[in-house]
């Protein structure tokens, strides 16, 4: 990798580092500062460390590397920052420099990073194959048997602790649920592309199906390529910018932005990264222009629905009652989209929105943070669950697969009393579908009292 100056932080435009005037207004919003009370674990503390590395006042050490990976990257600090510090860029650059210098390298970490970031998440077909194997293991009852026989205890400790969090893979993936092109219902007003994601594709493909449904219902012709590369957010957030650029180029080639009115993403984490392709590929002469155009065309599904004036449904979804909305960090802080999902939830008949305390706080999922920092992730998960339970809501709406799985894992085995976790768009799609079933709307419990 070509580096101007001694390191990537030094090569960065210095004004990005200088932008932080250390007023401290970020401190109360930072989960890791709240956990430890130490400045090093705060946004302004981390920026001070980065600046010191850029100024050559501090050697980039293992401790520095660990600190950059202790940060959740939730970007809550960017919502709190009046000075408009671009923490996302600082954070990604710092992690990239940590990887470039290899201060955290060890054989086990190197192997896992290579296998996951370089191999699995750059090959969509391989990822689906592994997903299929996992499905076979789960659907055949082998997983249950292995758990009953406590075979999982034979795993190394770290893996054993993570095993119960293994997501439940669905029988059919997105391409088996969605045709490559699906027409608008009624007049075509827009032509859009839908990104199906990696985890979402295997574990929550119904969210992708629902996304296509609500788009068609609102006059969009929907293009969904059956095989899509990963967007690269996993790579960029983990200090591997080269593969992230490669994946961005592949996605731009697959979905040329000038052919669509919008390119739709329904996962907060992906969307936040997808929006910044302009930034990521700014130094690539062959792609810079297209990447800039791509960033203009990217829309979060909620944002797009509100923008085109989505139709209000007149039937309730399958579950009715109170709903609370947990904001994905990269949707609310990364993309500043907070109002639109609520606007959608409020129009759906039969459900009533109850706000949750600290709705914009990270649930601890944070990409792969729950794997790399289990202690802090679990503390945040419990804090989140306490706040969610206090609302008494029957439905928890959230728009990111990581949050979805993290909350589901925290709630444990589902029963009648467990709240339903669902993407807002799934509720909207259900409501549209229920309209067609009329005149006998089916409630899974008593209809809401008016």
């Amino acid at each position, binding site marked *: 990798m070509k580096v101007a100056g001694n390191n990537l932080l030094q090569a960065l435009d210095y004004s990005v580092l200088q932008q932080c005037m250390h007023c401290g*207004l970020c401190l*109360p919003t930072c989960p890791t500062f709240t956990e430890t*009370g130490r400045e090093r674990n705060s946004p302004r503390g981390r920026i001070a460390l980065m600046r010191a590395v850029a100024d050559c006042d501090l050697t980039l050490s293992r401790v520095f590397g660990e600190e950059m990976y202790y940060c959740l990257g939730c970007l809550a600090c960017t919502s709190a920052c009046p000075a408009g510090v671009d923490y996302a860029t600082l954070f990604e650059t710092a992690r990239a420099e940590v990887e470039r210098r290899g201060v955290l390298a060890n054989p086990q970490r190197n192997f896992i990073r290579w296998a996951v970031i370089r191999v699995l998440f750059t090959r969509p077909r391989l990822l689906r194959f592994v997903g299929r194997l996992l499905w076979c293991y789960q659907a055949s009852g082998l997983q249950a048997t292995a758990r009953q026989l406590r075979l999982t205890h034979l795993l190394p400790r770290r893996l054993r602790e993570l095993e119960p969090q293994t997501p439940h893979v669905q029988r059919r993936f997105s391409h088996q649920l969605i045709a490559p092109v699906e027409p608008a219902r009624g007049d075509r007003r827009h032509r859009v592309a839908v990104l199906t994601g990696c985890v979402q594709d295997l574990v929550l493909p119904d969210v992708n199906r629902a996304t296509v449904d609500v788009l068609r219902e609102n006059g969009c012709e929907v293009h969904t390529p059956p095989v899509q590369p990963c967007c690269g957010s996993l790579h960029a957030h983990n200090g591997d910018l080269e593969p992230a650029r490669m994946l961005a180029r592949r996605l731009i080639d697959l979905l040329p932005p000038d052919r669509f009115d919008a390119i739709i993403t329904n996962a907060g984490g992906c969307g936040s990264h997808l929006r910044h392709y302009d930034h990521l590929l700014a130094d690539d002469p062959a792609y810079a222009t297209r990447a800039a155009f791509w960033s203009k065309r990217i829309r979060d599904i909620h944002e797009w629905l509100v923008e085109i004036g989505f139709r209000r449904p007149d039937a309730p979804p399958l579950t009715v009652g109170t709903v609370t909305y947990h904001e994905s960090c990269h949707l609310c802080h990364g993309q500043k989209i907070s109002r639109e999902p609520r606007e959608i939830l409020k129009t759906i008949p039969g459900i009533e929105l109850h706000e949750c305390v600290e709705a914009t706080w990270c649930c601890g999922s944070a990409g792969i943070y729950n794997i790399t920092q289990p202690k802090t992730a679990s503390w945040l998960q419990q804090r989140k669950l306490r706040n969610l339970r206090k609302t008494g809501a029957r439905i928890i709406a959230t728009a990111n697969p990581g949050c979805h799985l993290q909350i589901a894992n925290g709630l444990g085995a589902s029963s009648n009393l467990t709240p339903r976790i669902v993407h807002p768009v799934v509720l909207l799609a259900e409501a549209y579908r229920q309209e067609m079933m009329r005149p006998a709307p089916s409630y899974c419990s008593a209809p809401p009292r008016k």
Partner: protein
Amino acid sequence: MIQELAILVGAPNVLTEPEDILPYAFDGTAGLKQRPRAVVFPADAAEIAAVLRLASIHRVPIVVRGNGTGLSGGSVPVAGGVVLCLTRLNRIIELDQQNLTLLIEAGVTTQRIFDTAAAAGLFYPPDPGSMKISTIGGNVAENSGGLRGLKYGVTRDYVMGLEIVLADGTVCWLGSKCVKDVAGYNLRDLFIGSEGTLGVITRVLLRLLPMPAARQTLLATYATMAAAAETVSAIIAARIVPCTLEFLDRKTLRCVEDYAHVGLPLDAEAVLLVETDGHSAAVEDEAARIETLARRHGATTVKRTADAAEADRLTTARRSAFSSLARLRPTTILEDVTVPRSELARMIGFVQAVAARHRVEIATFGHFGDGNLHPTVLTDERDTEEMRRVEQALHEIFEHALQLGGTITGEHGVGLAKKAFLRQQLGDASYALLRQIKRTLDPAGLLNPGKIFD
């Protein structure tokens, strides 16, 4: 000494690694940085006393710090010194609803104090811009103000008692819950605003007020700063004392709106943010009179907020003014000159003229009602030629404020940032008296040395 500190407060509460201590090298003040030797997190007054005794044996300077949001460099470490960070002293000890007092430890945040009081229907008025994270210990040490100073005064007006650890490790209590108490010298007031140079504040007893029944916020826009100033004079002349009477100039307005998106008008030269509180009938009457006065003195628009939420959004946006200004240039230097309020319009005019004369960019906002001005220089510390002009401009602003009978700092403190101008403001006799008091209470000069004066 580090090992001894670890024995006193426990090893996990002593930081010495470069990555750990580097983020404690600064507070909220631009351009000031000094790495300490160690950062210590004591649990209570007894541990602090032990640390101070140890420091005096080893002759190591001590700098007290809360969450490091100060704006005059008061908690910036001293070379070779130890930072005493009081954030572990975060207990709310007693809310006395009969005497309307609140006893808390020094590390409790201002926001938590406000919320605790509000939950009991009570009111703690001082609201510095950083109240979400600033600690009460720091508020007392700097005698912080805020947006409500015009009607409700500053931190000093709410402190009834203090627990102090002196330089030799003695723990003393100053003050009481009595509204009237004239026993002995009023030493409590000596420590308010002492900027960590006389002793370590560990507990604070605060006076609370009943929560005002109603409040109304108005936003008036102006085509000229002079018209806004005339409105303020008219409000004061009409014997109205609003709780808040803030102004923002055009530059500040744009930056705040860019961050907060609260619908501030971008085409105005100045806006006034006025809040009146109290009994609902009085609030309604005052709001109507203020609206009339604003219109009569050239306001282009006057808007009343619809509800408390909208009013909160506006005041929160105003609190972010200083940090929002950092959007424009790499370095943001915030000043705090204050003049008798009758001189305020003249002072603002002078700031604008100085900025033009020295070709420096200065945005101005502040508390119109109490004469407290925040000229904020937007510059780049790497440009030495520009920085020289900035220094010259600031120098002239200080001089002029003093000529108008004003002060170099209204609410941020002297610290490191303004100590060069203190003697000029106080005069030789008062300045010497300050140093005499310092020498009496801290003969070895180990408590925050080099702050306020050398």
